[in-house]
């Protein structure tokens, strides 16, 4: 029985790297998250799926600590972070790629890449990042925001791989990008997973999500309403379409 249970839910097999319980968050007076619960095991890739405005982006922002008003519990590798400023959460090994990518226009590509300080040993070397994203090397002295959308996304991902962060938060990395770039980002996520990175992916494009993720959490109106392992996605496709309204 026990082995069966762990097979169904890999999060039970090991202590979770990230444990979120009863997470609530507000934009000013507007209550956006109403008690988010989920776990992410070390080395897993999980997605947060849901409609626009469901609270996926806000969940990532709350985990990294840039939501000013939040409560509940977010435990990262055994440390409660709900009261910590974002700079302290980053130093626990959380790397954040925001939806708008956050490339600095007053910094060139190299400065953007080298900006986030090292928080832990074990990050990728700059050469390894250039192997993943050869475009960045060619444009190293360009102003950050002169890059194409795809290159900016690669830079936003590349710069947090250097830092040794082992939990990566990707907010819609494929949004607005050409299919060939989406494929490249998909391959990158697979490579990162094989290197042991833990990834939380917010996605609208669930066809993309299905190619890279272990499990999918469905977020609706500020709550997690379902969890679907990727292996069971086909059996649950109608249910998922209902959730996402597609």
């Amino acid at each position: 029985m026990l082995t069966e249970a762990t097979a169904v839910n890999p999060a039970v097999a090991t202590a979770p790297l990230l444990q979120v319980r009863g997470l609530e968050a507000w934009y000013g007076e507007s209550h956006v998250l109403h008690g988010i619960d989920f776990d992410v095991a070390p080395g897993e890739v999980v997605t947060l799926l849901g409609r626009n405005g469901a609270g996926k982006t806000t969940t990532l922002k709350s985990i990294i600590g840039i939501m000013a008003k939040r409560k509940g519990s977010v435990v990262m590798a055994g440390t409660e972070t709900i009261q910590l400023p974002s700079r302290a959460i980053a130093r626990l090994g959380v790397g954040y790629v925001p939806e708008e990518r956050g490339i600095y226009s007053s910094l060139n590509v190299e400065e953007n890449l080298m900006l986030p300080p090292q928080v832990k040993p074990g990050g990728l070397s700059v050469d390894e990042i250039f192997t993943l994203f050869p475009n960045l090397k060619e444009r190293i002295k360009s102003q950050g925001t002169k890059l194409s959308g795809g290159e900016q996304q690669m830079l936003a991902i590349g710069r947090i791989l250097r830092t040794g962060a082992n939990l990566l938060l990707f907010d819609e990395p494929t949004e607005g990008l050409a299919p060939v770039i989406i494929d490249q980002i998909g391959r990158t996520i697979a490579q990162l997973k094989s290197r042991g990175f833990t990834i939380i992916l917010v996605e609208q494009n669930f066809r993309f999500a299905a190619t890279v993720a272990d499990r999918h959490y469905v977020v609706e109106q500020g709550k997690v309403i379902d969890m679907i392992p990727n292996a069971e996605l086909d059996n649950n496709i109608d249910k998922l379409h209902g959730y996402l309204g597609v």
Partner: protein
Amino acid sequence: MFELLGIPPQALFGQVLLGLINGSFYAILSLGLAVIFGLLNIINFTHGAQYMMGAFVAWMCLNYLGINYWAALVLSPLVVGATGIVIERFLLKRIAHLDHLYGLLLTFGLALIIQGLFRNQYGSSGLPYQIPPQLTGGQNLGFMFLPNYRGWVVIASLVICLATWFVIEKTKLGAYLRAATENPTLTQAFGINVPLLVTLTYGFGVALAALAGVLAAPIYSVNPNMGADLIIVVFAVVVIGGMGSIMGAIVTGFSLGLIEGLTKVFYPEAAATVIFIIMVLVLLVKPAGLFGRPA
């Protein structure tokens, strides 16, 4: 001796030098304002008072403690910069989330208080500060006489401005500063201590003002109003150059000093207003300033 456009060269170059001296102070002061505005989003109206404090601390060092000019050049910016850090930690931090206007009112009020305290203690007639013995005398350049101290002020200001530009634009620390200026929330989410950066930046901007004050002490008399008189022009310089641009502040500072000096030669009546006329013209054509980026 030759004449240029009917002006004796001694008069012309004399005014050019005077313009460069004024330009040096405009450049250092507007540089400090630009750095502070970039990261703190505060228009630091205390800047003139802090420049005055720099001169006074140098005067106190000499007259109370026997500390000479060269030591004061280092000590005074440190002392005044430290008072800036206290102001940021205890006052500016509390209003950081509010509208610009609150920062403006607070720093303006502080300037009035500081100037009032110094006026109370030292009067407003001004105190003399001797040129350091190493820099007395001057050079005869053939076409003009260059007092050594004035040459030193121009060169020192250029070095200070270019060093500041280098640190901000070309170093890792500068990259942190630029990143925090552009997107403080994200920069903090990378693990960078932005509040500390903000405090140190304010302290640095204030120290720059104090450094200008020490440089000015032997030229102008040390006077509680010396900053209030200068800062109005410096704000015009900042508006012309564009808030938040480092090189813009430096180039505009020196150029406007020169233009002011030349105006004194060719059309003395406009010398006091030329900078403000340029400000109006620039605002009409490029509201963000010559080097500023439109918001």
